[in-house]
């Protein structure tokens, strides 16, 4: 083998997978994983751990894979992460653990994500579960939201011996893992549901259909239902629109709506009771992971799909792997292009989208070169469906119904990064509700920090 190169991972053929919703990446088998593990040089001062928001002992678990003791490898990961099968699939490894890997200086970094995924899948298939708390603390913590931040915080607190209840607004637990990320990237039944079962096995209770701020409030949970502390991991669920003319035409959707229909409500399945628009020619506006997910979903529902993004390929915020997969499957990238109006017929259905070409100017506040319109470059794209994937912002339902909980100008909850502490006593927060839309693993890191903060608060009493 070439030690400078990753052991390649098996994938479903691009042509074939473009027409189905089965998982794209097939993962390593044990032999492949053990071979890849031998590439790790087990650095004393491991940079990869520093690149991981939940600080998994990466060389530690890889060492066990090298030895062929996958159960032990799983236990090493479980010390730090409650959702390894998810993270191995959706983390932006290239900018985290793998981005820091010493092997990556000369050749390709160790395939840490694929190894983590293999270990987690092996543990699930072999019925290995994380261990719960031996002693109970006799204190109750409420966790709002069952996405990555909430599940991690709940799992960690349960392991410490707290009595944890998660409140979820939707009918199913998982947050963005079930409504946002598609089946072909993160299988729901086999992977997400099982990871949630593991969290439940630690003693965590999950109550669905409870909208905090409507069904009950944080103050009621603490004053009437006896919760000693609360963690808010309610995410960033509000979709953004561009504010251009024609955006309310029939056939314009937020990526949130389109993906929720397909993922949570299973509308991709013809037998589903929930409808979804199956467009012939779809434009997805945006360049992040959500845009890639929406585009690849539309493709699988039979459309010709265009990604419309106002900057260039280099600035695409999506994971490299997602862009790569999208291109392989035949998604067309219309870069340096910005929509200005959505056109519709007399009945209100989308018939096209007017766009303008862009070029890159001077860097803006984010350090990325600012896109500037090229004069007289307007043109019309012939599309029947437009999906807006422009990012999301936190839902004000909780902050507007909780006295003493401070938010910033972006409606994000103000919380201490180190321990999740908010401006209200006993209330902690983390994940997208605090940072605005980010990644699964950053939310998990915040959930973890908050669990530690809550433990310090409750044991200091």
């Amino acid at each position, binding site marked *: 083998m070439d030690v400078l190169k990753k052991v390649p991972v098996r994938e479903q053929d691009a042509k074939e997978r473009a027409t189905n919703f089965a998982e794209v990446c097939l993962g390593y088998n044990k032999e492949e994983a053990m071979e890849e593990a031998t590439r790790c040089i087990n650095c004393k001062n491991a940079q990869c751990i520093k690149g991981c928001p939940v600080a998994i002992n990466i060389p530690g678990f890889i060492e066990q894979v090298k030895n062929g003791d996958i159960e032990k490898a799983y236990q090493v990961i479980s010390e730090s992460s409650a959702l390894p099968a998810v993270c191995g699939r959706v983390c932006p490894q290239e900018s985290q653990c793998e981005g820091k890997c010493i092997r990556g200086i000369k050749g390709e970094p160790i395939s840490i994500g694929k190894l983590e995924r293999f270990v987690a899948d092996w543990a699930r298939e072999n019925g290995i579960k994380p261990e719960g708390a031996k002693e109970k603390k006799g204190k109750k913590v409420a966790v709002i939201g069952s996405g990555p931040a909430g599940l991690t915080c709940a799992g960690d607190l349960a392991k410490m011996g707290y009595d944890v209840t998660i409140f979820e607004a*939707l009918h199913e637990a998982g947050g963005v893992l079930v409504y946002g990320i598609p089946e072909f990237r993160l299988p729901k039944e086999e992977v997400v549901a099982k990871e949630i079962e593991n969290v439940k096995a630690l003693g965590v209770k999950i109550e669905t*259909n409870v909208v905090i701020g*409507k*069904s009950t409030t944080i103050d009621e949970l603490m004053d009437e239902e006896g919760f000693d502390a609360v963690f808010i991991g309610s995410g960033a669920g*509000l979709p953004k629109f561009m504010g251009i003319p024609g955006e*309310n035409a029939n056939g314009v959707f937020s990526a949130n709506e389109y993906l*929720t229909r397909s993922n949570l409500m299973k509308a991709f399945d013809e037998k589903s009771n929930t409808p979804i628009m199956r467009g012939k020619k779809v434009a997805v506006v945006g360049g992040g992971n959500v845009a890639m997910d929406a585009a690849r979903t539309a493709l699988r529902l039979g459309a010709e799909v265009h990604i419309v993004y106002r900057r260039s390929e280099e600035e695409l915020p999506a994971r490299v792997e997602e862009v790569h997969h999208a291109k392989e499957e035949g998604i067309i990238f219309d870069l340096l292009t910005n929509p200005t109006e959505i056109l519709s017929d007399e009945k209100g259905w989308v018939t096209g989208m007017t766009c303008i070409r862009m070029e890159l100017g001077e860097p803006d506040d984010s350090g990325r070169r600012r896109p500037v319109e090229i004069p007289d470059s307007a043109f019309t794209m012939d599309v029947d469906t437009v999906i807006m994937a422009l990012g999301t912002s936190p839902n004000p339902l909780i902050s507007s119904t909780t006295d003493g909980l401070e938010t910033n100008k972006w409606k994000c909850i103000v919380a201490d990064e180190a321990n999740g502490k908010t401006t209200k006593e006993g209330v902690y927060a983390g994940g997208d509700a605090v940072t605005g839309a980010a990644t699964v693993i950053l939310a998990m890191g915040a959930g973890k920090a908050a669990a530690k903060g809550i433990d310090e608060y409750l044991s200091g009493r």
Partner: protein
Amino acid sequence: MYKILKKQELAANIYLMDVEAKRVAKSCQPGQFVIVRMDADGERIPLTICDYNRETGAVTIVFQTVGAATKMMADLKEGDYFHDFVGPLGCASEFVKEDLESLKQKKMLFVAGGVGAAPVYPQVKWLHEHGIQADVIVGSKTKDLLILEKEMEAVAGNLYVTTDDGSYGRSGMVTQVIKDLIAEGKKYDVCVAIGPMIMMKFVCLLTKEYELPTIVSLNPIMVDGTGMCGACRVTVGGKVKFACVDGPEFDGHAVNFDEAMRRQSLYKTQEGKAILALEEGDTHHGGCGNC
């Protein structure tokens, strides 16, 4: 799981159910709604709240069978369960938060069309319990389709019933009754109109002429009902609002009804196919060229 405590057929294809949902019953207010799912694969169906009992934890819903999902819902019996029942969603009617003394100075007119009587009822009842008598117009196509007449009579100031075909009460549309009442010298400060979109549109066109502020309750397509999907966006006064979190009640004179009605038709073809599949089994799934 949420138990159906009571089921009653109010009129042909219009059903009332009391459902045990303690959290909703404890916190809901007039103007709000719920979303239900019948089973583990069910669609999320938004329904208006018709009544609630804080002591027993029961929430009353009323629905008309319009699509495949509501047709299946009508088959549920007392003792059966809803898989999911979430709420209360949306904002409470504005008057709930108003100063009671200034509210008592106002003369309110409620206009209910068809099953719109269901969401109007808890509002009029709330006012009645707070010592305010509001006038209510209830309109239905025919006498057989009239619902909640007795209940409404018990809480309304004056109740005016009208049927499109004249088979009961006054004859004609609710807009005619509004005209008649104002011609008779009645004066109102606020109108609340809830019913089919087309009815609300015409009530608003009329009350605008009278400069009578009018609130409507919109029921657009929605998925989550918590502000997440944006399917329910409506244009009110030139601004885009999400009916599920900003509404469902809005200033009727500012609502773009034509756009709202267009948006309601989004999945009509797919809904039609679903009804055919339900009624005729595997014979129709569209695409046969004959349907």
